[in-house]
């Protein structure tokens, strides 16, 4: 029975040697392979059936739209289209595609590929959650919702194999940005049709052995729960300027593990960083820590149909009684930015009104005016949040501030994500946390949520003047200044009525190895992988 000792030895060897291996960071620098933490396991890579950020990262490497966005300024840069014209009324765009644009199997990429892809994206049967990105295009919404069945009436026209014309409903200054959205990337018709119907969500066309793409990289490996690997696409029109030979995306749901992987030189870039590690990096390795404003807003929804909360004065009082600076400093490790408006300042050159500030005295006065002096008589307020430690801490802090500043007793309720969404949707709450990440750099992406009956309104709030501005007046405005003034006016209404309470502006926070070049931070957290390179320290 010496086998016990052998067993012990074997198990020790297995347990210690079962993982680890080469350090990927130096090896990656040598081979030109970027190792990147990518959050969760991607749902898939088909841009018409997925919506998440990890998916988007991979899609950015695999595909390229008509235009791209400069990673520093987010201004449009040529993609598949080498140039474009816009008609004087701002409603017709003409794109001239480069003749050397190719799919990763060597086939030519033409204007028809875009037309077909957008046709697919708008098929009602496909269930593309991002179909609305195409709604600025004439008749796109009518087609996507089944009100129109003739696709030739949608504003997409193939003039010749290398010229594509797009007609919009109204001049849409942010339209060029939408063209870089993943749902607008061209998809390979031949391949998709080979593996089933174009509207089939269960198709196998995105498997590494089947997929064909047009971006700087092509998909070569997809190991569930382990990694997604892309390699340089030799047929990409600008392949000569693509510096990386490949990218490996890892599902790193656990940020604690991810940080450890970064520290042990297994990842060049992480998707996030645990809050409690930030101060250590700030002190010891500030060059590896990246914290930047992100186009996202964290706010509280108020159910404006509830007694008490149906009074705008009460809602404003609640908003004024929150000390955002203190909240961010004490609860959020000082990585976010206080929000006094829904739209982050600077979104597409927009400066929002400064109406809201931390003013406990004013808040008490408003509450008294509304008939609840010193909080007396106000029906119970309950803060609903989805189960998450950070949300809980924020809710506790707000609860304390409301108690201290307004003498209001608040209860807290946490619910599992889907239950929370369900209750939000059916207005079965009094106050709930919420967040929104903008899709494009324009105040419209935030402010259009709160039109009457808007799918993300979830507050029961409705204001005819606001609707008129967002839906009719602003889209008809010609100049940038006019539009921004329009949004200013709309947001002023929103802040006076306060169906939502802005709390903070998001920030991206992650770790990046000094060898990674060409990956500047931007508000949308978009990467342009074709410009990224790995350079050893000199």
């Amino acid at each position, binding site marked *: 029975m010496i086998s016990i000792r052998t067993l012990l030895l074997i*198990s020790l060897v297995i347990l210690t040697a079962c993982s680890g291996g080469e350090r990927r960071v130096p090896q990656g620098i040598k081979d030109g392979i970027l190792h990147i933490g990518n959050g969760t396991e991607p749902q898939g890579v088909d841009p018409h059936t997925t919506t998440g950020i990890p998916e988007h990262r991979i899609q950015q490497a695999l595909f390229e739209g008509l235009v791209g966005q400069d990673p520093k300024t987010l201004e449009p840069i040529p993609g598949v289209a080498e140039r474009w014209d816009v008609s004087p009324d701002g409603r017709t765009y003409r794109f001239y595609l480069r003749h050397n644009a190719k799919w990763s199997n060597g086939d030519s990429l033409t204007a028809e590929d875009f037309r077909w892809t957008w046709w697919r994206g708008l098929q009602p049967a496909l*269930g593309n959650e991002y179909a609305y990105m195409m709604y600025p295009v004439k008749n796109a919404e009518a087609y996507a919702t089944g009100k129109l069945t003739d696709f030739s009436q949608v504003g997409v026209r193939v003039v010749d194999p290398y010229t594509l014309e797009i007609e919009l409903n109204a001049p849409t200054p942010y339209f060029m940005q939408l063209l870089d959205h993943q749902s607008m990337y061209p998809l390979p018709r031949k391949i998709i049709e080979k593996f089933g119907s174009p509207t089939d969500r269960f198709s196998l066309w995105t498997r590494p052995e089947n997929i064909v793409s047009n971006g700087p990289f092509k998909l070569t490996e997809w190991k569930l*729960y382990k990694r997604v690997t892309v390699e340089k696409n030799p047929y990409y029109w600008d392949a000569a300027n693509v510096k990386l030979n490949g990218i490996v995306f890892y599902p790193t749901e656990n940020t604690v593990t991810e940080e450890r992987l970064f520290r042990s030189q297994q990842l060049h870039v992480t998707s996030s960083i645990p809050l409690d590690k930030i101060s250590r990096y700030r002190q010891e390795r500030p060059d590896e820590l990246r914290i930047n404003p992100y186009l996202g807003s964290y706010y509280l929804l108020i159910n404006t149909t509830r007694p008490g909360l149906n009074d705008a004065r009460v809602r404003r009082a609640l908003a004024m009684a929150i000390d955002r600076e203190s909240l961010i400093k004490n609860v959020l490790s000082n990585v976010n930015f206080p929000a006094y408006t829904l739209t982050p300042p600077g979104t597409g050159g927009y400066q929002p009104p400064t109406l809201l500030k931390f003013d406990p005295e004013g808040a008490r006065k408003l509450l008294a005016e509304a008939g609840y002096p010193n909080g007396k008589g106000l029906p119970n307020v309950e803060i609903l949040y989805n189960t998450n430690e950070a949300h809980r801490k924020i809710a506790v802090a707000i609860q304390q501030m409301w108690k201290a500043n307004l003498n209001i007793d608040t209860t807290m309720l946490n619910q599992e994500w889907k239950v929370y969404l369900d209750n939000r949707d059916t207005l079965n709450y009094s106050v709930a946390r919420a967040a929104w990440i903008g899709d494009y750099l324009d105040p419209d992406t935030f402010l259009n949520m709160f039109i009457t009956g808007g799918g993300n309104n979830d507050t029961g709030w409705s204001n005819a003047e606001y609707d008129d501005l967002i839906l009719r007046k602003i889209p008809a405005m010609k100049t940038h200044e006019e539009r921004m003034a329009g949004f200013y006016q709309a947001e002023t209404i929103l802040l006076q009525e306060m169906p939502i309470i802005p709390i903070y502006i998001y920030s991206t926070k992650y770790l990046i190895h000094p060898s990674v070049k060409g990956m500047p931070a931007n508000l949308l957290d978009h990467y342009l992988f074709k410009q990224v390179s790995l350079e050893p320290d000199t």
Partner: protein
Amino acid sequence: MWRFIGSRLLQAIPVLFIVIALTFFLVRFAPGGPFSTEKAVVPEVKRALEAQYHLDQPLLVQFGSYLSDLARGDFGPSFKYPGRSVNELIAAGIPATAELGFYALIVAVVLGMTAGIVAALSPNTWRDYLPMSSAMIGICMPTFLLGPLLVLIFGLWLEWTPVSGWGEVPGDKILPSLTLGAAYAAYVARLTRSGLLEVLSQDYIRTARAKGLPNFIIVFKHALRGSLIPVVAFLGPAFAGLLSGSFVVETIFQVPGLGRFFVQAAFNRDYTLILGSTVFFAVLIVVFNLLSDVLAAWLNPRLRSGLGDRS
């Protein structure tokens, strides 16, 4: 014997049916659906999605078609991962779960037998009381308490091991294996101790002692073999328990195995994945229980002949 196995398999069918039916209807009555997301989905899109997954059909029709798919071994497509089948997702989760189960089994056997032997060699001394009371604690302590406790001590205070992960940084497999194996180690320790004590009082051991054999040889060469039968019988159901019971450990340590995706599927309302994992675990438990019964029957001559009489 074959008849015994056949009848047990037949008995499993109604059990599985009840499990499937209960799960099928329960998940559908849970608030929120697979397509409720923070970004509101346009009603047309939502309808189209429901149509693609046949959620627009009456519930009983859905149930019927699910059962007929299941009969062909098809768990259906995942709701969360378009283009992925549940069969594929389960298959991808098996290796980590099986590996974790295997290491936990090693932990259980090595730790448990060592403790049991030490205890049996000096009964009613501190060398007996210490491992046996630890074993008692090990049996009583649920994994969702032991796991975080081990993380706190070895991961955060001592910083000896990673706090979570699986196969990502060296040593990250230690804590999950320990946590999962601990309760089973405790059982093994108690079984080994009692088995060994019983054998040590037998005549042939006394003979061996009389012949002047060293204690080491007596215990390891003669006594231990006989005392292991109850331990071996225990290991069959233990392995089933390790595989199916690992979802708490997988969730604590973020092990990308079946159990963790089972839990996530529930959060995502990925109906087919929830059902698929449930059915898979149910089948696993049924099969391992059957196997251990067969093994026990085969080990025990009295039971074996009983079975023979019936057949």
